[in-house]
């Protein structure tokens, strides 16, 4: 279970204190999926960064499976990211100097998996996301949709229990976006992981088990979708 309590994030801007997130609280059961929508500047990415430990909150608490994510050492945080957390970024964020296969196997390598084994697993995941033919190519040599599929494979290859996706379809055309979204949901369902996805597409968010609308850093609407 992902539990967020009274989460706030403030930062200084031009001498004034700006509140990016204010008193956000919610609970998400294990295996559930949450779509976060809202206008630009509503605090969606800040929420995701706080959940992923990329930023520290000004106040509040985040626990995942009874682990306090804000009280981890650097090593514990790294271990958490290696084993339990999967990131999928808006602009795929693939490493340019590494092939698609190497990009996908990177979380396994960082986690200490032997290279041969990591390569084999990455090849399987490339197959799953339908871009096995791009394995040896470099990110610049494949299309945007293929890059995003590679990013999904990289985010899920180590079988995380919490997946954070920051507008994973944000830079794709409508057709591609739909395919990538379906793929992400299917794979996530197979893994049984908890998914938090920031998206501009309200349609996508509504197809997940939970839907949160943020406005000015606060939860304006929370909806549980009973399928």
């Amino acid at each position, binding site marked *: 279970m992902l539990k967020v309590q009274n989460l706030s994030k403030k930062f200084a801007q031009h001498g004034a204190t700006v509140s990016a997130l204010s008193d956000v609280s919610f609970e998400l059961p294990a295996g559930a999926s949450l779509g976060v929508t809202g206008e630009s500047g509503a605090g969606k990415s800040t929420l995701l960064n706080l959940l992923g430990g990329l930023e520290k909150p000004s106040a509040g608490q985040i626990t995942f499976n009874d682990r306090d994510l804000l009280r981890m050492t650097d090593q514990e945080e*790294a271990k958490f990211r290696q084993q339990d957390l999967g990131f999928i970024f808006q602009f795929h964020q693939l490493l340019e100097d590494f092939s698609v296969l190497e990009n996908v196997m990177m979380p396994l390598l*960082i986690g200490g998996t032997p*290279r041969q084994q990591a390569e084999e697993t990455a090849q399987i995941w490339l197959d799953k996301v339908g871009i096995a033919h791009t394995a040896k190519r470099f990110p610049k040599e494949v299309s945007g949709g293929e890059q995003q599929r590679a990013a999904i494979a990289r985010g899920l290859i180590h079988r995380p229990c919490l997946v954070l996706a920051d507008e994973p379809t944000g830079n794709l055309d409508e057709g591609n976006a739909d395919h990538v979204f379906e793929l992400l949901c299917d794979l996530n369902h197979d893994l049984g992981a908890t998914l938090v996805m920031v998206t501009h597409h309200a349609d996508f968010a509504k197809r997940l088990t939970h839907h949160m609308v943020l406005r000015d850093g606060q939860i304006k609407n929370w909806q549980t979708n009973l399928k």
Partner: protein
Amino acid sequence: MMLFLAKRFLGQKNERSVRSQIMLISFLGLLFVSAFVIVALAILSGSQKVYRDAVLNFNAHILIFHQDGLYEHEVKSINAFLLENTQGFHASGYQYHEILVPTKLGLKPVIVKGIELAQKKEVYPLSWQEEKNFSGDGAYLGKELYRSLQARGETFSYINAKEGLSLKQSLRIAGQFESGYFDFDERFVLMDLALLRKTFSKAQQVEGLEIRLNHVEELDVVAEALWQKFGDDFEIQTWKELNHSLFEALKLDRTVVFSVSLLVVMIACLNFFGFLFLFFMERRREFLLLNRLGLSKQGLGRLLVFVGLSVGGASVGLGSVLGLAFVFYLHKVGIALDPTVYFVDRVPVFLEPIWIVAFVSGALLLCWLTAQLAGMVLLKDKKA
């Protein structure tokens, strides 16, 4: 994994940016500085070795003399004392005489030194070369003097300064010697004491005694003991005291070369810091992405240091190899010098492994520190 990541990050990018070219310049800067320092150290060691060896081989370790000379019983007494107080030694009495030698450029003043020729190789470990088919008594000319006279095996003419300029006489040439120090090789003639006395009608007592110890490390102790025993009767000097000014000059040389080298290395390291910083900044997004994928800050720090050390190590290593190759060229082929100015006829080189190891270790340590610093600056900035 570190090697895999470093190889990829350091691999050639498809698009060569201005930054990449700056990096290349920095890499080459450190490479050439390493080569320069290796060559500078080798020349410094070489010149010190040439001067030191020449001085040490031409002059013995300890000199005992008296203005009225040393009598035979006094020499025996000193020898007996040394037998008891050293781990082995060789000694030779000496006498000097001045002559003038006619050359194409006019009369050249030359010092004839009488020594115990039977002991020549033990007391004076110079490079001795005998004339072919020579037998009997004769003089050994310094290599440069031999060359300037164009002497060919038989005799050379001289004027005995004490007997007047008009009296021209000749001496048989037994061979030549080389100390490696131009001044000695050009101005000295060595011959047996008995021949010197006979030729120039010198007194029977020697002017002094030159002593070469088998173990030079006991020099100070033996000199002190000699001074205690004979200090009231004779003058006693060690080679350090005799050549004080030369060694002071060499010390100054060393200090200057060291300071300049240190300065150049520091400038290269600053340049290298710039290179690493640029490199890290250029790859900042990738490094921080690795952090998001689970590479800890320590792991990221290790990767940055690994990359820095790899680049720095390659640069210092290649530079050292280039420097060593040039030193090898100087050793085998050499660069000519004017011996009347530098006292040696070509650039002397000598490699002291400890200096090379110290330089390479120091340079790598600086690269490591530079990489640490650049890494710290990068890791402080969390913006991706």
